C-alpha cells in the first residue's frame, strides 16, 4: 500500500516532466523533418530555407533589435487591445445574458461582425481614429471583441440553470450573481472562448501592423520579410509568434485551466 501511495504521488507529478519532454520531442521531430526536406531539396531553397539559415536570421533580427523591439511593441498592443476587448466584450456579453431580446439579436450580429476580416476594419480605423497606434488598437479590439462577446454570452447561457437558481435563492442577484456564480460556473467554457479571442486579436494585430505601418512590431517585421521575399525572415516571425502563443498558453491559459479542472474534478477523465 505504501508503494501504491508512492506511485499515485508520482502520477500526480508526472505531467510536468513528460509534458515538457513531449513538447521538446514534437519540436525536435519538426525541425528534423524540416532539415530533411531542405536537404533533399524538393523545394527551392529561396522558399524553404534551412533551419540554420532561419536561426541566422533570428540572430540578425535580435541583434539589430527589430525582433526584440517588435515583440515588445506587439505584445504591448496585443495586451492593451485584448484587455479592452475582454472588458467591452465581457460587459456586452453579460448585458446580452441579462436582456434576452437584445442577447438573441446581438448574438447573430456578433457572429456577422466577427466574420469581418481586419482588412475591412482598417479603412474605418483610419477614418475614425487615425493612422497610428490607436488605429491599430481599434482594429485589434474590433476583431476580438465580438469573439469575447459570443463566448461570454454562450458560456454563461450554458451554465446549468440549477446553479443560478440556487444562488438566486440564497439572495444573490445582479452583480453578485454574476461575479460569484455565472462567471465561475462558466469558467471552463470561458477559458476556451478566451483562447480563441486571443487568437483573433493576434490575427487582427498582425494584419493591422501591416496595413497601418508604424515601423515597429512583429507584423511589420513579417511584412518586411514578405515585401523583400525574405522567407527566412517570415519563418523567423512565425517562430516568434508560435513561441509567444505557446508560452502564453502554458503560462496563462493552461495553468488557469488545470486549476479550474482540478477543482471541478474534470480531471477524472484522465483516469
Amino acid at each position, binding site marked *: 500500500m505504501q508503494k501504491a501511495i508512492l506511485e499515485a504521488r508520482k502520477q500526480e507529478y508526472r505531467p510536468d516532466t513528460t509534458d515538457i519532454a513531449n513538447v521538446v520531442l514534437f519540436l525536435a521531430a519538426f525541425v528534423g523533418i524540416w532539415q530533411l526536406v531542405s536537404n533533399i531539396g524538393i523545394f527551392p531553397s529561396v522558399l524553404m530555407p534551412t533551419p540554420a539559415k532561419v536561426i541566422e536570421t533570428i540572430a540578425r533580427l535580435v541583434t539589430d533589435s527589430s525582433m526584440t523591439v517588435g515583440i515588445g511593441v506587439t505584445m504591448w498592443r496585443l495586451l492593451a487591445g485584448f484587455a479592452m476587448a475582454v472588458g467591452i466584450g465581457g460587459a456586452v456579453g453579460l448585458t446580452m445574458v441579462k436582456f434576452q431580446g437584445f442577447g438573441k439579436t446581438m448574438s447573430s450580429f456578433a457572429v456577422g461582425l466577427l466574420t469581418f476580416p481586419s482588412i475591412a476594419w482598417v479603412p474605418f480605423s483610419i477614418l475614425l481614429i487615425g493612422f497610428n497606434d490607436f488605429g491599430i488598437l481599434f482594429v485589434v479590439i474590433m476583431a476580438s471583441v465580438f469573439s469575447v462577446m459570443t463566448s461570454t454570452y454562450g458560456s454563461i447561457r450554458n451554465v446549468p440553470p*440549477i*446553479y443560478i*437558481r*440556487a*444562488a*438566486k*435563492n*440564497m*439572495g*444573490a442577484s445582479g452583480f*453578485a450573481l454574476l461575479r*460569484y*456564480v455565472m462567471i*465561475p*460556473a462558466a*469558467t471552463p467554457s470561458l477559458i476556451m472562448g478566451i483562447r480563441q479571442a486571443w487568437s483573433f486579436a493576434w490575427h487582427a494585430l498582425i494584419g493591422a501592423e501591416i496595413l497601418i505601418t508604424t515601423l515597429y512590431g512583429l507584423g511589420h517585421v513579417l511584412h518586411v520579410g514578405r515585401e523583400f521575399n525574405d522567407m527566412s525572415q517570415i519563418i523567423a516571425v512565425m517562430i516568434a509568434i508560435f513561441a509567444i502563443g505557446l508560452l502564453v498558453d502554458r503560462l496563462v491559459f493552461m495553468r488557469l485551466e488545470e486549476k*479550474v479542472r*482540478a*477543482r*471541478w*474534478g474534470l480531471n*477524472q477523465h484522465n483516469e
Partner: protein
Amino acid sequence: MAQIEQEYQGNVILELKEVSKTFPQVEKNSDPRRHGVLDRLNLRVREGEFVTIVGTSGCGKSTLLNIIAGLDAPDSGSISAKRDNKNTGKAERVVIFQEGALFPWLTVTDNVEFGLKIAGIPKELRKEIASNFIEMVSLTRFAGSYVYQLSGGMKQRVAIARALALDPQILLMDEPFAALDVQTREILHEQLLQIHKSTGKTILFVTHNINEAVQLGDRIILLSPHTRGIKREIVIDYPKPHDIDSPEISAIRRELLNELQEDFKFAKSHP
C-alpha cells in the same frame, strides 16, 4: 390528531391562493402539450410551523417548493409571504434542493459561506458560522474539499449546512435526508427540531419517508397527482419528536399510507 380548521389559527406567514402550474410537455417528434401539476392549490402556513409534505413521485412537491421560494412563477394564483424585518439583506426563503445544487468551483467551506458572503456578513463571522454548521453535519475533516470529492450523503449534508447557515425565516427542504444513513439522519432530525424550537423558523419539509413526515411535522400535507393539489392535511398536536410507535402516530401513519396507496393506484390506471 385533528382535521384542519377552516380558519387556520395563528400568525400566517405564507399564503398561497389558487395557485396553478403547468409545464410544457416538450416531446421528441410531437406537438407540445401542457401537463398540469398544480391546480388551484390553497395553502396557509403559520409562523413557526413545521409542515411536512408527502406525495407520490412526480406529484409536484418540488414544484410547489420552487413556487414558494419564488424560483418558478405559477401560471395563475398568488403567493404572499410576510416579510421579517430583522432579516434584512439575507435570503428569506431558502431551499435545500432535491438534487445537489452545490457549486463545484467552491470548497465545502466556501459553499457554506456563499449565502453569507452575498449577504455581506464580515469574513470572520462568516468563517465561524460556516465552521459551526460544517461541524454539525460532521464534515469538519472535509471543509477544504471540493464537491466532486464528496460522497452522495456528504453532498447532501453540505447543502443542509449551507441553507441553515443562512438562518432564513422560512426553510424549504426538498428530501434533504434522502441520501443519509439512519444514524446521521437521526442526529440531524434532532438538530433540526432543536433549531426549529430555538429559532421559531417556519419549515416546509418534503419527504417520501412517511415516518419522517409524522415524526417531524406539526402538520402533514398530502399532495396528490389525482387532485393536483392538497388531498389531505393532518395536524399532529403532540410534543415532538413524535413517537412513531405510539398508537396515535401509528394511526396517522396508516391513514397516510392508505391515501398514498390510492393515489398510486390512480396514477397506475392513468398512465
